């Protein structure tokens, strides 16, 4: 029987991506705990393995061996399907992300669009899970998540459209290739295209925080208000899969920001390009995401919408108009 080697390659990539996503979720928890601890001048996990490095494994085993409780009164179908709906699109998005010049599962011409299409399914998973839980806290959380995502998708997409106008392509590989040759070529400093590019990066970053429900925009699970929000009724691996999906989404967000603004696998000084630079930039962004979480208090729901509609959207539209004008003039 003849098998297309492309399919085997794709399968290998898919397995690799799932492993990467799962490992990332596990070790981002470790990073989060360790970073939070040191910010608060504690040590954090330290008992299991050196520096507590095996802690995520132990946690994973604990989550897997826990009973999966499906409370009476929930909608069993929605309740079970929701974690998968969060996890699967996150993993699918990895397919088109180029980690280096050669390390990419499938280089799509509309790669950027694919990622945003998958990213918007994430919120559906949260909504269904929360609605299916039949829990008042979860339903409030679901309502928040949906309007938050709607509000933040606009400035995010407007910023991305600005970028696409500059690069003229939605192929992620090509976008990175255009930024080769040192940090002054990266889009974040592409001041000749638009002087507001660093601001655009900030907007994209803030929107990414909001899209992935990270603090200070973690309205969905705001534990001092909604206990655990959408996840209140989940136990064991149901919660674990939600968690992995959330972290996978953070990785996607950081990767996209790296590709769009920070030159992907390009080295800052034009030397030794490769996958390591991509990972360094991506993990630095993730580090910043965690750093932000352990520094700021949570915003309120209306504060968050005010920020989006009154500040981010006007500025990103201004940037769009400015960029298009400059493209036309020069």
């Amino acid at each position, binding site marked *: 029987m003849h098998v297309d080697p492309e399919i085997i390659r794709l399968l290998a990539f898919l397995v690799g991506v799932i492993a990467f996503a799962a490992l990332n979720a596990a070790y981002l928890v470790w990073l989060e705990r360790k970073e939070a601890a*040191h910010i608060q001048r504690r040590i954090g996990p330290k008992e299991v393995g050196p520096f507590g490095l095996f802690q995520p494994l132990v946690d994973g085993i604990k989550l897997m061996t826990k009973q999966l409780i499906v409370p009476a009164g929930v909608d069993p179908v929605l309740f079970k399907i929701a974690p998968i709906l969060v996890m699967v699109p996150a993993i699918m998005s990895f397919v088109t992300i180029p980690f280096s010049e050669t390390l990419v599962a499938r280089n799509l011409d509309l790669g950027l669009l694919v990622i945003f299409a998958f990213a918007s399914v994430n919120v559906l998973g949260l909504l269904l899970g929360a609605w299916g839980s039949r829990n008042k806290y979860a339903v409030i959380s679901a309502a928040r998540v949906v309007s938050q995502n709607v509000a933040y998708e606009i400035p995010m997409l407007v910023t991305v459209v600005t970028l696409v106008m500059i690069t003229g392509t939605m192929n992620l590989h090509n976008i990175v290739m255009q930024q080769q040759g040192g940090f002054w070529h990266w889009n974040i400093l592409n001041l000749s295209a638009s002087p507001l590019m660093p601001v655009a990066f900030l907007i994209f970053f803030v929107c990414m925080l909001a899209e992935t429900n990270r603090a200070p925009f973690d309205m969905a699970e705001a534990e001092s208000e909604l206990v655990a929000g959408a996840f209140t009724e989940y136990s064991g691996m149901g919660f674990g899969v939600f968690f992995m999906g959330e972290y996978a989404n953070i990785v996607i967000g950081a990767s996209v920001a790296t590709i769009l603004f920070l030159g992907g696998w390009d080295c800052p000084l034009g030397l030794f390009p490769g996958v390591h630079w991509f990972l360094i930039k991506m993990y630095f962004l993730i580090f910043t995401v965690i750093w932000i979480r352990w520094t700021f208090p949570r915003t309120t729901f209306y504060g968050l919408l005010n920020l989006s509609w009154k500040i981010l959207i006007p500025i990103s539209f201004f940037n769009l108009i400015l960029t298009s004008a400059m493209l036309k003039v020069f």
Partner: protein
Amino acid sequence: MIDYLREIISGTWSLFVGLGITIRYFFQPVVTVQYPYQTLPMTPCFRGHIELTKDEETGETKCIVCGMCQKACPSNCITVNGEKREGVKGKVLTEYTLDFTKCSLCGLCVESCPTAAITFSKDYNLAGVRKEAYIFDLKKRLEAKN
């Protein structure tokens, strides 16, 4: 409009100031003590559960079974019993039980004792799985110490 921009800039700046503070602490050494690997010295004033003191000369308890501690205790957790013995002046202590499950460590018993026969122990590593483990026979503890 200017206020609007000013608020955005000052607000963003305040966020960066906050981030600067936390990253500074990130690189500073930890301040926690890794109990139980490390322990701190107990202050001499620490009030643990009570215990009987030894008379320096005889090595016996100084308790004269007056029952003042029993009366002073707000939670009735002390039981003192004694008996008359021939050839000994006063009463001899036969039982001194502290029900530590009820004790609130207020120290009224120690203050009320006329002969300074009880004092606070410096014992704070107390853990157990049964309630009975916390009904201390202080007389036996004193004898075990000898």
